[in-house]
């Protein structure tokens, strides 16, 4: 199974964290620190995999954002890379040419999309169409733009 997924910028600012097993806050902070320093210090054109304790760390950079996924040792590294890619595709489809800012301002959406795709550290649905359809469907349940504009801005 997957243990956690972290998204952080080239400056090491965390943009999204998803933990698939319960963990203490202190431990999380330590892992985040370790991961950002480890991944950011990697040279260009090195491989996308690293060993960290008994976990495999798979990371990939998309524009200014690093995606860093930890999987258990018996899992498949290449497929984990494609898990990251599929998530990027899903974000891209939803936001339309996704960029870091989309994820900052709509972090809750990024979480919802991830939840449609993965659950409990395993793949729930790999079909892009089905995931998109269910995200669109939940958006339909939400308010219209007029309603949005009439909301107070504080």
């Amino acid at each position, binding site marked *: *199974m997957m243990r956690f997924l972290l998204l952080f910028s080239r400056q090491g600012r*965390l943009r*999204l964290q998803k933990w698939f*097993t*319960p*963990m*203490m*806050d202190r*431990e999380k*902070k330590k892992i985040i620190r370790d991961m950002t320093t480890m991944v950011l210090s990697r*040279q260009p054109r*090195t*491989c*996308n*995999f690293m*060993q960290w*304790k*008994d*976990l495999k760390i798979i990371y990939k950079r998309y524009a200014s954002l690093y995606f860093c996924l930890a999987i258990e040792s*018996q899992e*498949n*590294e*290449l*497929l984990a*890379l*494609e898990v990251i890619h*599929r998530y990027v595709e899903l974000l891209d489809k*939803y*936001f*339309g040419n996704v960029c870091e800012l*989309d994820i*900052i*301002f709509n*972090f*809750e959406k990024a*979480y*919802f999309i991830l939840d449609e795709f993965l*659950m*409990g*550290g*395993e*793949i*729930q*649905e*790999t*079909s*892009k*169409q089905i995931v998109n359809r*269910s995200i669109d469907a*939940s*958006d339909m*349940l*939400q*308010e219209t733009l007029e*309603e*949005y*504009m009439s*909301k*107070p*801005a504080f």
Partner: protein
Amino acid sequence: MPAVSKGDGMRGLAVFISDIRNCKSKEAEIKRINKELANIRSKFKGDKALDGYSKKKYVCKLLFIFLLGHDIDFGHMEAVNLLSSNKYTEKQIGYLFISVLVNSNSELIRLINNAIKNDLSSRNPTFMCLALHCIANVGSREMAEAFASEIPRILVAGDTMDSVKQSAALCLLRLYKTSPDLVLMGEWTSRVVHLLNDQHMGVVTAAISLITCLSQKNPDEFKTCVSLAVSRLSRIVSSASTDLQDYTYYFVPAPWLSCKLLRLLQCYPPPEDGAVKGRLVECLETILNKAQEPPKSKKVQHSNAKNAILFEAISLIIHYDSEPNLLVRACNQLGQFLQHRETNLRYLALESMCTLASSEFSHEAVKTHIETVINALKTERDVSVRQRAADLLYAMCDRSNAKQIVAEMLSYLETADYSIREEMVLKVAILAEKYAVDYSWYVDTILNLIRIAGDYVSEEVWYRVIQIVINRDDVQGYAAKTVFEALQAPACHENMVKVGGYILGEFGNLIAGDPRSSPLVQFNLLHSKFHLCSVPTRALLLSAYIKFINLFPETKTTIQEVLRCDSQIRNSDVELQQRAVEYLKLSSIASTDVLATVLEEMPPFPERESSILAKLKKKKGPGAVSVTELEDNKREGGELNGGADRGPDSASTPSPSGDLLGIRAAAPIGAAPASAGSLLVDVFSEAGIAVSSAAVNDEGFLSSAPPSEDPAPPLSVADDLLNKFVCKNNGVLFENQLLQIGIKSEYRQNLGRMYLFYGNKTSVQFASFTTTVSCPGELVYSIMFLKFLNCCVQLNVQTKPVEPLVEGGAQIQQVLNIECLTDFIDAPLLNIKFRYGGGLQNLTLKLPVTINKFFQPTEMASQDFFQRWKQLSQPQQEAQKIFKANHSMDTEVLKAKVRLPSPICKPRHILHSPCIPVGCIVCVCVCPQMYRLTLRCSKDLVSQRLCDLLAEQF
């Protein structure tokens, strides 16, 4: 601020995020956040009831602040309120907040569970999915207790929507992983297996993760999944790239599902059914063939997905380890990848080959790639790839190529990255020892190791070289000569001084004939390093000096002078001063005979597992070194130790692996260094430290309050466990994702000793690890208090507290001394508590201490037998069971199991217990496939209990 593209956004939230982003400094950001927190707090506390939208917005802001890395200590109640909103977005945000912020032991769980219960029964698929996600995200025990029986029902119900099925499968998997005892197998299990045939690929993908996990734990119950998985796999593998529509990923049909299927098959041995096996081999061949076809797309996603399946197929081939043809093909395929331009593939090929190297069919094929791998070690730009190359060299090493590989690894060490040096050193040391044909090579290698990477040579490594030199007299002269030469270097590593001091102290006489290395030259050489060394090394050198006085009486005056000088005899370090004083005295008053006895050459070390190997295992975590490797090492170790006698106890006592010299436990604290032939005094002093720190720990224990949480009820599987151990003394008592408990026990008459091994299977430390042994129905005694425990006055269980911290991958041991005072029925309970991640883990097991352990068999003549049998003729004294055989009716096996000395069909057997004033007579009758077990015993409870216990064993 970007426009919100779709759906609902929260303007207030967007404004707040913009504000944060516009902050020029960290201080400004914190100020803005504090302002916001105050605002939210006042809103939540205000008299005016907030509408759903505002609540959602504020909860979302809190979430954002938390994700920035700030602590949030309020708002949980508002989030829980959102769960019961009937607006989807509000509910969704509520669940998100809880998933991210609520840890498993929150007091809110009951309220959350209520909301989840409502959503699960709402029949609204989106609500149900939200609730299932929340269970999977929090995954606490309370949630498992509340929903573990409900979710299987949702999963297999005919009218459940596909998306809900997917969520239910993965949610159940999560609960099974956290609380396997609560997820009970049942009627649903067989229906779950058939989800492999489901029309909807998404359902299969989700369900297979669950099935794989269940199969690993209950292989027999899920056996049918093998043929289903093979046929599903074969359909995918043979499908065209467009057949599976959206489940085709960059022209590769269903890569995730294919890999999961291949992974599931790795839980089982090769299929026995010829047709199924043929079909599977065909699939594997197709996958290997496809790897040779030209790619359908230039995109890296295409090749990744395709190769992911290929690597998984190779793992399965390696797992089966029975198809030489496929193994060699796999090896060739990986050989191609070794030179691929993609770094990722090179990395994975090296990793995969490591496992191939251990198969007898492919070991030779792997070895043909040695040059490529050595080249990778030298030229790869990426340290993780070089690391893999080093691992592979280690794995492919055998007698034929050991010299080459060790030489390459040594030369790589000179430039190796700091992060992997220590591991490399250990590996070189192990290989050099394992494949040493002539020991001069071994000594050279280790000394080179110290020269090249002295800082990374751990104690275990130099201890080991000394052990081996002492145990093998054919290498002692060479070792003394080489170490003498190595010490000539103007700057040599302190570890070299240690080895040099020790070896010259023992065997300096072997090279003293050469005037270039006369005793005085040797001494001066050693002493020239003295002032540059740390205290432990100096202590060791002082011991070497006193050994010199014995070996070479002509050096006596020189050495006495050195010992007498102020810097020694008045040294501020107590240890050094004591040694100097005592050695000086010893050398001046003891006769030559006494000196010769006291300072005699060290006796050979008893054979034990190489502590270097233990260290490597510890570094890499359990499972890193294969069992065969260990056994190998044992064998070779025996050879190395020059056939030293194996002590009778060495087999039964668990070897204290960290303790190389095997004297730490027995060492008197701060013993006078001159006691025995003690050149190893530095080890003694360490023992002092170890013992005193243990004492400190004890005190910590005593002062800490006992944990307030009640022990968990015993696992429902506990009785099965108990039955497993009725006739077995060793084995794995318990295992889950976190913890493995191994057990080793021995019984003699009314006494028993039980070793419990607690292994931490995770990478994370367990904190506040405590164990308590108690008896059901009695007060819980804490074994933290080092006192005799009186279990129902029937059993005495005595033990010591365990270390409160168990590092990731580490194992700790606990010894229980058990005394049986009278007959008993209930097994003692072992309660284990520790903190892992956020949550307190609480676990209660029955210890497999059963009354039959305290019985011993006696054989008697048939008249005696019948006489006794008749004496015990009251109906309550007899217990009888008639039952079908569970196992094959092999009398030999049975004899061993029930410890019956005579053939079973002859109904005469007496078990006799020296401590319990009861005899018990067993009579077993065998008819085809049936047994009749009759026990008669002067105590009715005993006969009943024994009958129950033994009946399970047939």
